[in-house]
């Protein structure tokens, strides 16, 4: 093969080119399953409405309750963050596993394309789709149960970006774990996801947790992401944020968002090197 008539991309342009090409591949796969598009939207809407209705059963006037916007805010914003975090936390590792199963992981590693771009491309399209789902479900929920509290959008977006950046890091670390433990990674992911649903309280206020559990919540940076995100969008109603003043939560989130991707990537590269040396990259 003669590379003479090919343009050789280097540096940042090569990185973006690889990211775009790989994201396009993921998008192509997604568009082959149109029913899944519609079904995932319906599913999200149903889950949110089920949890909101369940919450309203505890209010004085049930579904006719006029003061239910905070309940809806806690559920809807918590669920939105939960969806975004699920994308970044598990999808990267899940996709690495999928490449292993399909037998294409080794080929991918033989190509000179950036490994970071490869990892991020796994969730780029999903994140855009989740964003659209979030907007759609918020509009539908507002139409059904009245206006959601909606304040401080720029700060809310910043908190979302910081939390996502941090969870990208956790996602890289989880992908590293997947390379090590293989199939057991999926069971582990399920277990951690359920622990996250309880400890990081995306569907209910932290006040509902027993005191001991709240202490554990305070040790996990993601909890501050959940708390800061919904409190900010709800306009800091009485009692919110629950874990710490918003300024402190922002500092914790910034540290998490900046350091975690570096740490996660370092862990992934370390595990990748180990797998290559052992020849276990394509082991399935």
């Amino acid at each position, binding site marked *: 093969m003669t590379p003479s008539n090919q343009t050789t991309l280097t540096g940042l342009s090569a990185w973006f080119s690889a990211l775009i090409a790989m994201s396009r591949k993921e998008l192509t796969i997604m568009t082959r*399953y149109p*029913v*899944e598009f*519609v*079904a*995932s939207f*319906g*599913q999200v809407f*149903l*889950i949110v*409405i*089920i*949890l909101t*209705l*369940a*919450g*309203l*059963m*505890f*209010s*004085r006037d*049930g*579904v006719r309750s006029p003061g239910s916007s*905070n*309940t809806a805010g*806690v*559920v809807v914003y918590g669920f939105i963050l939960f969806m975004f975090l699920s994308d970044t936390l598990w999808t990267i590792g899940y996709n690495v596993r999928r490449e292993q199963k399909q037998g294409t992981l080794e080929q991918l590693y033989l190509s000179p394309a950036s490994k970071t771009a490869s990892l991020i491309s796994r969730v780029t399209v999903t994140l855009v789709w989740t964003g659209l789902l979030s907007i759609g479900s918020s509009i539908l929920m507002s139409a059904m149960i009245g206006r959601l509290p909606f304040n401080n959008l720029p700060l809310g977006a910043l908190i979302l970006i910081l939390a996502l950046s941090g969870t990208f890091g956790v996602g890289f670390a989880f992908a590293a774990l997947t390379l090590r433990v293989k199939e057991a990674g999926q*069971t582990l992911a*399920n*277990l951690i996801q*359920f622990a996250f*649903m*309880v400890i990081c*309280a995306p*569907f*209910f*206020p932290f*006040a*509902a*947790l027993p005191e001991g559990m709240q202490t554990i919540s305070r040790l996990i940076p993601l909890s501050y992401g959940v708390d800061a995100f919904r409190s900010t969008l709800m306009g800091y109603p009485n009692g919110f944020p629950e874990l710490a003043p918003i300024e402190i939560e922002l500092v914790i989130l910034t540290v998490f968002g900046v350091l975690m991707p570096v740490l996660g990537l370092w862990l992934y590269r370390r595990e990748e090197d180990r797998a290559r040396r052992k020849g276990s990259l394509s082991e399935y």
Partner: protein
Amino acid sequence: MTAIANPTFRQTLSAMLAETRLRLLNITRYPGQLMMEIIIPIVFAAMPMLLGRATAGADAEANFRANTGTANYVAFLLIGSNAFTIVSNAFWHIAYWLRFEQETGTLEAVYLTPTSRITLVAGVSLYSALRALTTSILAYILGCLVFQVNPLQGDILLAFLFILVGLLPLYGVALLFGALVLKVKESNALVGLMQWGVGFLMGIFFPVVALPPLVRAVALAFPPTWMVNGVRSALLGVGFFFEKWYLDWAVLWAFLLFIPLFSVQVFHRVENGVRRNAGMGEF
């Protein structure tokens, strides 16, 4: 080898039980999966419980009673989440049945065997019902103990009657849905959506009277709605739809007599159509 043109009842039963045994043997290899099936309904019911406790505080029980007919929200929500497990299992195991055979590479063998597909699907249904009932009962008892509620209250025998009569039409609906999956193929997406759709309609965490009239009418056309309300009424006294338990039970019997036969007919028609168009092996 002798071909069996018209198998006897005994032979059919034997084939059905063999399928059930095969599936049960298979799942015993994955104890972690069974553990998760016990934990998931408890965690799932804990979400609205914690949300309600936090938002309503000391009024949680009183408000819940005013809206649902019982102050025992722990048992109410646990019944809902466990019924959801039963419904989800039915949909995944039945609607996903042929897809499962495709994935495991045994679909051709299924179509070459003289045993009827309905016999095999009955075996899968029995396995699914046994698995779902066992994990759900354990999850309910464990959940009640975790949240410090007595699991042995109310008319337990009547609750079982509602579950047992409700299971057959539920699996009938799942088979009907399986016919749709055969046609559309995208089983994961469809089953995922359907399980939440049925969860919503049967009032997983709320009574169906909370739904708008039109949606409520649709909900009442689903056997799981009657099954869940029957169990809740038997155990917690929230009130039967027709006030007397035997009237609600009779409705479930009507479903039982109609839905499975109708589903089998529809499934056969769709299956034949798909086979004629050579679409059965498409992955």
